[in-house]
């Protein structure tokens, strides 16, 4: 089966682009725990390697591993490998993660394109049982539900019921008791998936901690809870695994200074407004000269301008170039 790389150019999806840059900024703050360049990055790079390129160039990470589940894509991945320091492992993440050495802090981005299921939770569990303190886990899953306002109530009920049945079948015994089919509407599925992943992390860390002493016990601090949509609704949830004794160092990371950091069920919605280059430049200039509160006569819709204001530092710039 071809992966989503066959259908989507990962490097130019604007919301994904913003997400990647935000994550990069969060990872940079791990320096309070140790040199970020010494981290290992493990991802599911497809053949675009957009995340690998960014994290290598911005963070200096050289210990990199991309897991590619599609055997047909492996030669193409090899061909597109942007840096020699990236090791490509052909196989399913369930099989490949256990083959890696887990003796160094790792940033693991399980950037799936499918919906949450038992196999994805197995990777989460593996990380929780094996990752070193200081490691970051990030999980992206498809949490798509159609826009409810486009359908009749009855049709939405059908869609929700079907999705709840699917979810119950795919993450057997993990759907919280209070979740009803109607709770999955729109971004509801993403909210429920975050809870399921979070519950899994808590349970596996609890079990791992059972035999550890007080100072060596591990904690998980959620940092990311992105909702974004280039085509499908997607959820990215992630956080830091650290030792109880590392709390001061974690505080020095000052993650909370970044306004996209979300430590609980509160999400950060990445909205990328459609703006022309001139409009962006106009908004950027006004931002720098914020004290000049002259009325804006550009005609840019306010919600576009506001959305841009939240993410302008991470806003993608795509241009056609002759190479």
């Amino acid at each position: 089966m071809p992966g989503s790389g066959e259908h989507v150019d990962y490097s130019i999806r604007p919301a994904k682009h913003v997400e990647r840059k935000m994550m990069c900024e969060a990872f940079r703050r791990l320096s309070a725990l140790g040199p970020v360049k010494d981290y290992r990055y493990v991802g599911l790079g497809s053949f675009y390697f957009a995340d690998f390129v960014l994290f290598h160039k911005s963070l200096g990470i050289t210990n990199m591993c991309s897991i590619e589940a599609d055997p047909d894509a492996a030669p193409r991945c090899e061909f597109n490998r942007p840096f020699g320091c990236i090791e490509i492992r052909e196989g399913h993440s369930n099989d490949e993660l256990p083959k890696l050495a887990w003796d160094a802090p790792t940033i693991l981005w399980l950037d799936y394109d499918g919906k949450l299921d038992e196999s994805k939770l197995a990777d989460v569990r593996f990380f929780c049982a094996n990752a070193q303190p200081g490691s970051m886990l990030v999980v992206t899953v498809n949490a798509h539900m159609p826009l409810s306002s486009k359908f009749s109530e009855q049709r939405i009920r059908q869609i929700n019921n079907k999705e709840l049945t699917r979810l119950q079948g795919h993450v057997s015994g993990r759907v919280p008791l209070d979740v009803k089919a109607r709770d999955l509407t729109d971004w509801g599925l993403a909210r429920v998936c975050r809870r399921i992943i979070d519950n899994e992390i808590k349970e596996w860390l609890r079990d791992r901690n059972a035999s550890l002493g007080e100072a060596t016990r591990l904690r998980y601090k959620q940092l990311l809870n992105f909702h974004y949509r280039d085509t499908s609704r997607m959820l990215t949830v992630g956080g830091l695994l650290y030792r109880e004794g590392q709390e001061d160092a974690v505080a020095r990371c000052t993650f909370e200074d970044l306004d996209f950091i979300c430590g609980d069920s509160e999400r950060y919605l990445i909205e990328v407004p459609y703006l022309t280059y001139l409009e962006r430049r106009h908004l950027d200039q006004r931002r720098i000269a914020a004290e000049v509160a002259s009325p804006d006569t550009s005609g840019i819709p306010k919600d576009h301008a506001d959305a841009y204001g939240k993410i302008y530092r991470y806003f993608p710039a795509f241009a056609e170039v002759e190479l």
Partner: protein
Amino acid sequence: MARRKANPAQPIPLEVKADPTKEFFIEMLTRDIELKHAIVDLVDNCADGARRIRKQQPFDGLHVRIETGTDTFVIKDNCGGISEKLARHYAFCFGRPAGTPSVKHSVGQFGVGMKRALFKLGKRAEIESTSAKFAFRVVIDVDDWQNKPEDWTFEFQDPRRPKKGRLFAKGKWGTRIEVSRLHPSVASEFGLENFGIRLGADIAAAHLYTMEKGLKISLNGNRLKGQPLTLQQSKEIKPAYEEMELEGGKVKVRLYAGVSRSKQPREDPKEAGWYIFCNDRLVLGADKSDVTGWIGGRADVPKYHPQYARFRGYAFFDSDDAGLLPWNTTKTGVDENSKCYRTVQQRMMNLMQPVIGFFNAVKDETDRAEEALKTPLRDALQKAPLKKLAELETGDVFVAPKPDVIRDGPRVGKILYKKPLTEIKRVQKALGVGTYHEAGEKTFEHFLRTECDD
């Protein structure tokens, strides 16, 4: 080491000490039961309370509310409360004393459930109850109680009886148990949402029928719902059903064996197997072991295999005397040595053999699907709707269609090969087709037409 020699002149004492110790109940007995099952045991008491006051009537208006927090555990019901006689002489005894008033069709039998659950949960328990003619509170401080090895009593606090000739208001009848100073491992479990999900599923499965009778059970504010038991039934497929009476007619047994399917799009093998109920309480679910007859062997029921993922069997043991039922004390399995169960186990195997045979035939049919154009067994299996047990039309033996032996048209075979995607796409484009299947068929037809002699 020198050994002290026995003095042959002294008489040998005959007495052998066999007193129970409190440690046995507090620390040992509790190891034999999972936390979830201990809580289900407490729900059993509520269900028996409902049976006591409603007899055969529906349980509408009765509820059980369970709250699991990291500091306390609370279970509260309005199922009639504990009478003075029951509370004073039986409910707090370790084991079931002879003469314990019985509730017909009860699920409480061994006289250990409540105490074991309380010890399993924590170090302090407070039991409050109001029944028609008696209200009381009992506080158990486990450490204090353990420190008085000879004292096997508890004390009523604030015991009350209504004025002569009166009853306590019906709306107040019920029992509330609060356990605090939870064991760290229990508090840790209660802190996990995943534990609550599993606990909810276990309670819902165990008390499916009690809930169907109208008892509302909620966990942390969420109403629990059970999955009704179903089997597939159509004109072509009929489940097997058998009923019998054992122990001089005191135990009634009903057995169903047939096929079902998961609610999920993909069949979930976890649901396959036998489900055994004693007085409507599930004691063994989705069992695929030799306990329910999957013993393996040429002439018997085989060991479970995923090709039997759609097998479902339901065994109901019912008796007014719960002591005659073949359950273990944790109600998480059957007493295999019980005469009653051994007899029924044979019948279960008899009933399931034709169903197993059917699954084997379905597999054969699937295996030769390359050459057979008809797949009546698979078709029947797909078409037969799910029906609740009460709505089923059954037979003495499992009924299923016969495999297809007459083939329509020429024998066929299947060709399977892999090619690079890019090449397949080129072929698809050249042929103007959208699927790999069509690409394969059209290229074969083209070759046959152009390259093969007639």
